[in-house]
Structure formats: C-alpha cells, structure tokens
C-alpha cells in the first residue's frame, strides 16, 4: 500500500469487504425466515460471500492494507419478519453488493475493474433469482445516470428492487 493510488484501492476493497460482511449478516436474518428451498439458496449465496471475503482479505493483504473485522450486527433496511420480506432483503443485499463492486470498477487497475464488473454481474443475476425481475442499472441510482426510471412504480414509489 504505497502512494495515493494504493490508498484509494485499499479503501475501495475495504468498502467491498464491509458490504460483504453486512450482506452475510443479512443472509443470516433472511435464512431464518425462509422455507427449506429458499433457505438452501440463501446458504449458497452466504457460502459464496465467504469465498469472496477470503479473496478480498487476500487482495488487501497483498497491498499491505488492513482487513477490518465484521461487526456483530448491522442495521437492516426494513423489518424482516416473513418469507416475502426475507426474499426482498436478499435482493436488496445483492444490489447493495453490486454498488460496492462498482466502486472497484472506477479504479485505474484493469484487473480490479474487470473483477468488480464480473462480481456486479453475479450480484445482479442472484438478485434476479430472488426477485424474479431485473433492473436497468444494478448498483447505480437511476438519478445518477439519466432521468429515465423504467419499471413498475406503485403508490409513487419504485419497488424495493429498483431502489439502490
């Protein structure tokens, strides 16, 4: 970790690590409210997150940057007391992860850009597996990229999946 570029890269990787830890916690909550099939899918996503966490810790170590430990608990974006809410949470977590990976895509390192983009793709695919629908700009707020907001809007508010 030397120089401003290294600091920026380390910070971006730490941001992804924090998002991965928050998502791991969220999946623990979601899994408790899902029926058997959904719980198995949540466990697969959770296991993928642990593999990614190990990769991130290794990437940080190779840059001489610290890997902050996960917190004991995280604030959930909405109350989760039912299977539908648990499914929404899983989709929400994947979109938040995609946003964190897009932070890597803004770096100068071509390998990290490509890795971040592939991870964001995987997040969007998982979110679609949970929610059964897609969004135009996974991980980005639509306001950031243009005026158009495509997709169903109910009661003046976009569905949870359309919100970053």
């Amino acid at each position, binding site marked *: 970790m030397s120089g401003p570029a290294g600091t920026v890269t380390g910070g971006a990787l730490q941001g992804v690590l924090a998002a991965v830890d928050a998502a791991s916690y969220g999946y623990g909550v979601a899994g408790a409210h899902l029926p058997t099939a959904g719980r198995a899918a949540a466990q697969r996503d959770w296991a993928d997150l642990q593999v990614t966490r190990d990769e991130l810790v290794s990437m940080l170590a190779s840059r001489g940057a610290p890997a902050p430990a996960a917190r004991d608990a995280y604030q959930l974006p909405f109350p989760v007391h039912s299977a539908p809410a648990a499914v929404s949470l899983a989709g929400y977590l994947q979109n938040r992860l*995609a946003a964190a*990976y*897009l932070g890597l*895509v*803004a*770096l100068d390192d*071509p390998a990290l*850009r*490509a890795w*971040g*983009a*592939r991870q*964001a*793709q*995987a*997040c*969007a*695919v998982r*979110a*679609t*597996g949970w929610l*059964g*629908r*897609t*969004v*135009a*700009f*996974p*991980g*980005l707020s*639509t306001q950031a*990229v*243009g*005026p*158009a*907001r*495509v*997709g169903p809007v109910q009661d003046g508010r976009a569905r949870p999946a359309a919100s970053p």
Partner: protein
Amino acid sequence: MLAAAAAAVPLLAAGCKGVGGLGTLPRPRPDVAVLRAAIGNEQALIARYRSALAAAPALKDILDPVLGQHQAHLAALRSRLIGPAATPHPARPSPAATAGGADQTSTLAALAAAEQAAAGRRVSRLTVASPSLAQLLASISASEASHAALLRMHRSAP
C-alpha cells in the same frame, strides 16, 4: 471506430459560429469511441427484441420490461455523447430473431445468448473508459447478465 469518433468533432464544430477563434479543437477522448460502440450494441439488442416481439407477440409480458431497460441503457449512454447521434454500427436484424415461426423456447434461448455475449463484451472494454463511464458500462453489463438469467428462467418454466 477511432476515425468515426474523430469525424464527429468537425461536424459538431461546423454547427458553431466563430469556432476558429477558439484555437485547436480538443482531441476526442477515448470515451467517445467506447460510447459509440456501446450505443451500437444497445441498438442491435433493441432491434433483436423488436423482431422477437413481432415474431412472438405471446412473449410480450416477458420481453417488454427487458426492452424498456435496454431503452433506458441507450438513453443513459446517449446522454453522455455530445454530438451527432448517428451510429457506426447500424442495427441489423439477427437471423435468429427474423426466422419467423421459431418456437418461443428457442427465441428466449437466442435472446439469452445475445444478452450474455453483450455482457461479456462490455467487461472487455472497461479498461479504456473513464471511471464513471466504466461504472455505467459495468452496471449495464450486470443488467444484461440478469436479463440472460431471467430469460433462461422463463425458458425452463414458461
């Protein structure tokens, strides 16, 4: 592609009076070429969806939302391009989409394959884009990968 991007600047300048007094025109940034390629890809995908919808109207409920998201991609890309909107890649109907009478399963499979290919192509072009354009392209590629997943879900369980 680079030549096409460079040609855009004189066209743009021709629309302004007294541009000569501004001195040397800036060289087009690499983003212009990347944007034009991305716009061409989006137009080709949109043409594919329109052809598929014309050939298989029963797929409307599945394909319309995806088509709408591609139109949002195109609008976001175009909003970053200052200059003529003409594309160096005129959209051409795909053989799969224009075959007519193709069953819905193979239409969904062909569209899923096109989405997956588009998602992969965009990742390979991230390196030369500015940070913010790279993020937009990565997000669009993620949307396309999820479209492929959605189409496969409908193909296996229509």
